[in-house]
C-alpha cells in the first residue's frame, strides 16, 4: 500500500511537468492547428534562462555560508522565474513572427518542418561549446549543467510515503496555471478572440480581431508557461542539458493529444494520466517498457475516443 501511494506521489510529480508543458502545446495548437515542435526546446531554454539568471542575481544554495534567508530566496526565485518566462515569451514571439507567420497560408506540413528546423537550431545551437565566456558561458555546450537550488527542499514522510515541497508546489502551480488559463480562455475578451481565431481566423479578422497579434500573444503565453515548467522541473531535477526538452516535449504532446488537443483541462488531465500510467507501469511491470507503454496507452485511448479524453471531434470543413 505504501508502495502504491509512493507511486501515486511520484506519478503526479512527473505528470505535473508533462501537464505544464502540454498546456502551452495545447494553446498553440488550439489557435494555429500547428504542432509547435519547438515547444519542448522552449521548455529547455526556459530552464537554461533560469540557470543563467540565477547566476546573475547571485542565488546562493541553502548550504552556503551564511545560508540565504527565506525572504532572499523567495525574491530571487521570483525574479528568476519571471525573468525566464519573459525571455521565453520573447523567444516564442520571435519564433512565431519569423519562422511560422510567413508560412501561415501554406500547407501545415511546411510549418511543421520549420518548427523542426527551429527545434534543431535550438538544440544543436545550445550544444555548441561556449562562444561567450562572460558574464555567462553561452552556449552552454553538450555536457549537463547543474541547476542552482532556487528553493530549499523540504522532504516529508507521511505514512511511509516520501514527498517534498517541490512536488506540492509543482502541482499547485500547475493547477493554478490551468485555472488561470481556463479563465483567460473562457472569461476574457482575449480568450474569446483566441477561440474565434482558432475556429476561423479569416472571419475573426472580419470582427476586427487583430489576428496576428492574438496569435503572437498565444505564443508568448504558451512559451512563458513552458519556461515556468522548465524551472519547476529543474528545481526538483537539477540536471539540465540542451537535449532534455526533446523527450519532455514529445511526452507533453502525447499528453495534450491524450487529453484532447486544444482543451486546457484536457492537457492537465492528459499530463497527469500519462505520468501516472508510466509510473505504475514502470513500478509494477517491466520498467524498460515505460516509453512503449506511454504510447500504447495513447493509441488505445485514441482508438476508443479519436479526439482524446476531453476533445470534441469537429466535423472537417468542406
Amino acid at each position, binding site marked *: 500500500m505504501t508502495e502504491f501511494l509512493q507511486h501515486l506521489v511520484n506519478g503526479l510529480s512527473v505528470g505535473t511537468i508533462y501537464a505544464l508543458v502540454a498546456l502551452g502545446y495545447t494553446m498553440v495548437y488550439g489557435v494555429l492547428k500547428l504542432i509547435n515542435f519547438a515547444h519542448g526546446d522552449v521548455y529547455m531554454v526556459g530552464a537554461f534562462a533560469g540557470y543563467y539568471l540565477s547566476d546573475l542575481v547571485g542565488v546562493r544554495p541553502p548550504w552556503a555560508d551564511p545560508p540565504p534567508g527565506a525572504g532572499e530566496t523567495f525574491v530571487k526565485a521570483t525574479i528568476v522565474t519571471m525573468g525566464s518566462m519573459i525571455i521565453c515569451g520573447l523567444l516564442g514571439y520571435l519564433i512565431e513572427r519569423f519562422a511560422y507567420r510567413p508560412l501561415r497560408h501554406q500547407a501545415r506540413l511546411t510549418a511543421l518542418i520549420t518548427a523542426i528546423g527551429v527545434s534543431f537550431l535550438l538544440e544543436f545551437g545550445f550544444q555548441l561549446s561556449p562562444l561567450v565566456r562572460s558574464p555567462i558561458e553561452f552556449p552552454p555546450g553538450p555536457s549537463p549543467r547543474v541547476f542552482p537550488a532556487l528553493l530549499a527542499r523540504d522532504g516529508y514522510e507521511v505514512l511511509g510515503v516520501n514527498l517534498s515541497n517541490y512536488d506540492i508546489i509543482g502541482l499547485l502551480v500547475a493547477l493554478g496555471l490551468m485555472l488561470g488559463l481556463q479563465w483567460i480562455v473562457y472569461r476574457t*475578451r482575449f480568450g474569446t478572440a483566441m477561440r474565434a481565431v*482558432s475556429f476561423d481566423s479569416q472571419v475573426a*479578422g472580419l470582427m476586427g480581431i487583430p489576428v496576428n497579434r492574438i496569435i503572437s500573444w498565444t505564443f508568448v503565453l504558451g512559451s512563458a508557461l513552458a519556461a515556468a515548467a522548465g524551472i519547476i522541473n529543474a528545481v526538483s531535477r537539477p540536471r539540465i542539458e540542451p537535449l532534455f526538452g526533446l523527450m519532455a516535449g514529445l511526452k507533453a504532446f502525447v499528453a495534450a493529444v491524450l487529453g484532447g488537443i486544444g482543451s486546457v483541462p484536457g492537457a492537465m488531465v492528459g499530463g497527469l494520466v500519462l505520468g501516472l500510467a508510466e509510473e505504475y507501469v514502470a513500478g509494477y511491470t517491466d520498467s524498460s517498457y515505460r516509453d512503449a507503454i506511454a504510447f500504447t496507452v495513447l493509441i488505445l485511448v485514441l482508438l476508443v475516443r479519436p479526439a482524446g479524453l476531453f476533445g470534441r471531434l469537429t466535423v472537417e470543413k468542406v
Partner: protein
Amino acid sequence: MSGNILEVSDLRVDYGGIQALRGVSLAVPEGQVVALIGANGAGKTTTLRALSKMLRPTTGTVRFLGEDVTRLQSHQLVARGMAHAPEGRGIFLNLTVRENLELGAYLRRDRAGIAADADKNYALFPILAERRDQVSGTLSGGEQQMLAVARALMSRPKLLLLDEPSLGLAPQVVQRIFQVLREVSESGVSLLLVEQNAHKALQLAHRAYVLETGNIFMTGTGQELLASPEVRKAYLGE
C-alpha cells in the same frame, strides 16, 4: 466625388493563373443599398472578400470614407467602420450566441452601448435572445444567418458587406432578413449586398451592378435593372 462611402477602381484578383476579377470598379453612395448580382462564379463573393481583405487583390485601389484602404488588413477596416457578414455565415460554431455578438463589437469599448446594441439585436431577432447562451453550433441555418447579420451590426458599421444573406433559408426567414436590412439601411448604414435572389435584392437596392466572369456587365438603379429584359432573362428566371 464626395457622397460615396466606398469607391473601388480596377480591382483584380488572380487565383493561380485564373483571373477571378478582371478590373471591377464600383461605388457605394453614402446611406444607400448597392446590390451585386450575377451567376455563380461571376466574382461576387470574391469582390466582397477582396474588399474586406479576406483575399489580397492583385491590383486596384479601394477608397473607404475618402481614405485609401487598399493596404489595410481586415481588422483595420472594421475599425474604420466596414463590416462583412461573409458567405456561409461565418458563425463561430464553438462559441455561444452571446459570445458571437460580443465579438462583433470586439473593437468597441463602451460596455453600455454594446449591451444596448445587443438588446436591440435581440429585439430584432427574438429567437437569438432565447438562445443567447447556447453554443451557436446548435442553431438552425436561419438562426445562424440572423446571428451573422446581428453580429455584423454590433460593430456599428458605416458600411455593411453582406454575402448571400438569404441563401438556403425558408421564405419567411428571407422575408424577415430583408425587412431587417431595410430597417438597417433606413438607420443610415450603407449596404453592399451580394444576392442570388436577384429579385429581392433589386427591390431593396438603390443601385445595382451585374457581374459576369469577373467584369461589371451592367449597372443601373434597382428599378432600371428590374425592368431590363436582359436581367429579367438571365437572373430573374423569366
